[in-house]
């Protein structure tokens, strides 16, 4: 399969602004008018395509293709960014196509990071003006071209649904008809974007560009890339974190028909098969010895005890407002909790995979790549090629939830090493589910120790808090984002409370382990929102206050947006402090989300019946996508809080292996969800992650009102003994 063979030719020349007649494949015309649905782009590019900038292509067949610099892994960025371009161009939604931009930091950097990459729920916020301007520039050039052709002043021209018109003279032309002429127009320096009040597409539920391809099996993921003479490789990985390969014996593996090669690589032993099954069988037949001298040998139980001991201390100072310890000593009532959070694996549906094809002096890679600039550099370095000889195609990715964004590019390094050891030709590296679940890069195991004080009137006077957890950033290129030795991902969400508490201390006890850790959908908020929102709920209850009114009373002017989502969600759920209802509110990734969960006790386990969710994420570019992200974020957070833990047994081996022992939320466990979006004219903020933080504490708070039990250890449902 050579699905991307034309993409490179297409994209090579696009850096310099105006482009570009690429050769004309005969098929292109057949693609035109393939229905009135926006869609994924095909790769054919036709002569006379208008390329006003790095993001927009207008083909003579009237299709407008948007090059998306972010990976599409379910968050809807293909649709969202295409909507912005279509809006500013006054295009018809049906003519829009989306495709992945190449890896090129000079053109496609995330303006929030300075490198090309996706994460931190920034895809829409960092692209909002950039994509609008890209669309506005294209529109201005098409209008100029039309003015020349119609011989009328540009300001008398209107554009609607992809048609450029001059009413007085009755002349009009479609975008496609103007594409070639527009290519001769100088791009505007600072194109004018629309007033929000004139938006026609932004704020509406335009249909997603990729729903059809993702419902009929035609959407192409990395797994679906097949190249001529491609080998499939699997790697035998160390059984413990920090262990390294001492020796291996490939004799039995090489006897298996279809196994063509075995090579030691830094990550373990690579087995190459003519097909996937040969690689699987070959891998199972490898005998390997490991050097475990640097390995983590503690069990989860031992680590939890070590973390809890560290949390008894103050840790490094993060927040110190007033004097929390003195206030605690003077408090009329005190309340203490220790909360335990396990390691969590992300387990995206598509396991990690990549195809690397090495040719004479260049290489091409297909991967659902989330950090293009870093992975691109890693591929080039390992392959020993200049970066401009290494083409990185970002594929649709079957989920990520943070897993594909690694500071050390470990998977790119492994794929490159495995391909290099094979030599010329194409190699697909495929991780199995077991590799994924046992492969580390987990949400860090974390312990929170919290002490609160109330005065005689039930007002909260003291909040003393230490978080023991590993750093996600330390030792990676992201370390440059740390200040004063503090990694904000360890405590974000607990640093500043949305509640007026006069004496507040937060400390971070930095823990160390060879177990690799990573951001997991909503990062630090996965545990801080739980800690803050269950603790405030308990303190309010102790002070005899309602969970909604009590929170609102502690919110000031600066918390107007938190208060608004809280009030909205309370209205939606008909909140009256009912038993079995619990709420939580959290600001994350600059968005504000409040959720109320209605929970039932089913044989001693919580079952979430309903969830109401109110979100303020600024301008709602596509409300349907935002609702979908809230639904998905709630389901993702709920599943983990209810059922999931990665645990290390005696000696340090992971006890889970696949989805039989790492339990996933299934359809019968999914609550009904109602989402309401706060109307806003503020610039858009994140939606991929902010739905996740409030759900676990909302469920815990509901469970406490229902049963009187506090859920201090996650997951809520004890995991099956392995």
């Amino acid at each position: 399969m050579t699905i991307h063979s034309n993409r490179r030719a297409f994209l090579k020349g696009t850096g310099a602004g105006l482009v570009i007649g690429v050769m004309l494949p005969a098929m292109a015309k057949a693609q035109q008018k393939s229905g009135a649905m926006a869609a994924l782009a095909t790769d054919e590019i036709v002569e006379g395509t208008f390329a006003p900038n790095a993001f927009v292509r207008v083909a003579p067949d009237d299709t407008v293709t948007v090059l998306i610099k972010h990976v599409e892994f379910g968050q809807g960025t293909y649709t969202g960014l295409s909507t912005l371009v279509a809006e500013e161009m006054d295009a018809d939604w049906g003519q829009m196509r989306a495709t992945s931009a190449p890896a090129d930091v000079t053109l496609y950097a995330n303006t929030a990071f300075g490198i090309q990459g996706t994460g931190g729920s920034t895809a829409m916020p960092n692209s909002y003006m950039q994509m609008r301007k890209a669309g506005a520039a294209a529109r201005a050039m098409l209008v100029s071209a039309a003015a020349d052709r119609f011989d009328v002043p540009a300001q008398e021209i209107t554009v609607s649904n992809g048609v450029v018109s001059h009413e007085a003279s009755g002349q009009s032309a479609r975008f496609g008809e103007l594409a070639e002429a527009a290519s001769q127009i100088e791009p505007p320096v600072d194109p004018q974007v629309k007033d929000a009040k004139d938006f026609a597409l932004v704020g509406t539920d335009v249909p997603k560009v990729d729903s059809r391809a993702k419902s009929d099996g035609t959407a192409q993921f990395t797994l679906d890339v097949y190249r001529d003479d491609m080998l499939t490789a699997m790697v035998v990985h160390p059984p413990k974190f920090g262990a390294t390969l001492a020796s291996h014996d490939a004799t039995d593996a090489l006897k298996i028909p279809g196994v063509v090669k075995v090579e030691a690589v830094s990550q373990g032993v690579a087995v190459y098969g003519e097909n996937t099954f040969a690689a699987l069988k070959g891998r199972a037949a490898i005998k390997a010895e490991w050097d475990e001298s640097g390995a983590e040998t503690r069990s989860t139980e031992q680590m939890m005890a070590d973390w809890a001991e560290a949390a008894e201390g103050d840790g490094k100072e993060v927040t110190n407002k007033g004097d929390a310890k003195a206030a605690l000593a003077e408090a009329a009532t005190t309340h203490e909790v220790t909360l335990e959070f396990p390691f969590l694996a992300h387990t995206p549906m598509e396991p990690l995979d990549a195809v690397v094809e090495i040719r004479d002096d260049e290489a091409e890679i297909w991967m659902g790549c989330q950090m293009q600039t870093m992975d691109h550099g890693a591929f080039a370095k390992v392959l020993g090629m200049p970066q401009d000889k290494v083409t990185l195609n970002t594929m649709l990715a079957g989920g990520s939830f943070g897993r594909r964004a690694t500071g050390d590019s470990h998977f790119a390094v492994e794929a490159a090493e495995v391909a290099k050891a094979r030599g010329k030709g194409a190699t697909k590296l495929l991780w199995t589910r077991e590799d994924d679940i046992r492969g580390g890069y987990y949400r860090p195991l974390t312990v929170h120790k919290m002490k609160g004080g109330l005065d005689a009137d039930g007002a909260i006077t003291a909040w003393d808090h230490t978080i023991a957890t590993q750093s996600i950033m330390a030792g990676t290129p992201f370390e440059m984002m740390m200040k004063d030795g503090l990694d904000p991902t360890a405590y974000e969400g607990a640093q500043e409370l949305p509640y007026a508490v006069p004496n507040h201390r937060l400390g971070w006890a930095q823990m160390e382990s060879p177990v690799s850790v990573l951001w997991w959908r909503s990062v630090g908020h996965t545990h801080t929102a739980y800690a803050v929102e269950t603790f405030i709920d308990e303190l309010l209850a102790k002070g005899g206050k309602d969970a909604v009114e009590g929170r609102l009373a502690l919110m000031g002017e600066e918390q107007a947006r938190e208060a608004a989502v809280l009030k909205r969600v309370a209205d939606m759920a008909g909140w009256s402090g009912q038993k079995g209802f619990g709420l939580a509110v959290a600001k994350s990734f600059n968005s504000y989300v409040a959720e109320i969960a209605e929970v039932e006790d089913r044989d001693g386990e919580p079952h979430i019946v309903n969830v109401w969710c109110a979100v303020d994420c600024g301008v709602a570019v596509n409300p349907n996508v935002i609702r979908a992200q809230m639904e998905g974020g709630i389901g993702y957070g709920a599943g983990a809080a209810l059922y999931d833990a990665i645990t290390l047994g005696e000696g340090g081996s992971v006890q889970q292996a696949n989805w039989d022992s790492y339990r996933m939320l299934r359809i019968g466990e999914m609550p009904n969800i109602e989402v309401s979006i706060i109307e806003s004219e503020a610039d858009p903020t994140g939606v991929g992650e902010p739905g996740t933080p409030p759900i676990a504490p909302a469920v815990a708070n509901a469970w406490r009102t229902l049963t009187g039990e506090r859920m201090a250890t996650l997951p809520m449902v004890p995991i099956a003994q392995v």
Partner: protein
Amino acid sequence: MAITFTVNGEERRVDVDPDTPLLWVLRDELRLTGTKFGCGIAQCGACTVHLDGTTRRSCVTPVSMVEGAEVTTIEGLQSPEARAVQDAWVGIDVPQCGYCHSGQVMSATALLEGNPSPSDQDIDEAMAGNICRCATYHRIRQAIHTAAKTLEG
């Protein structure tokens, strides 16, 4: 070993290790890539195909088992139920990352082929074997109801 079976109405002959899971024969040999790999142990349903009309996890089905059988993959879905399911999926934008949805659509189609008006509980039971990490579950439920209504006429 040569094995002959029907895929999407066409007779195919493959010469592979008879233990090879049907999933990898469909993908690696026949290049029918709509059927996905998720777990390899029949836990997630991403590899769901129809075998003689009923759902089957192709990742745990040795290809030797399908000798002479009729296999339908997402690429070969043609029934009115399948069309209604896929249109309903698109209509409310069910997929997010999309990776599991070949399997979801296969399971939903089989459900409607056997039960034209499933209840929520029927849906939960029929779809329990299909994991979606994006948690599109309640749209799946809604889309199946929509498809059932469409088929009623």
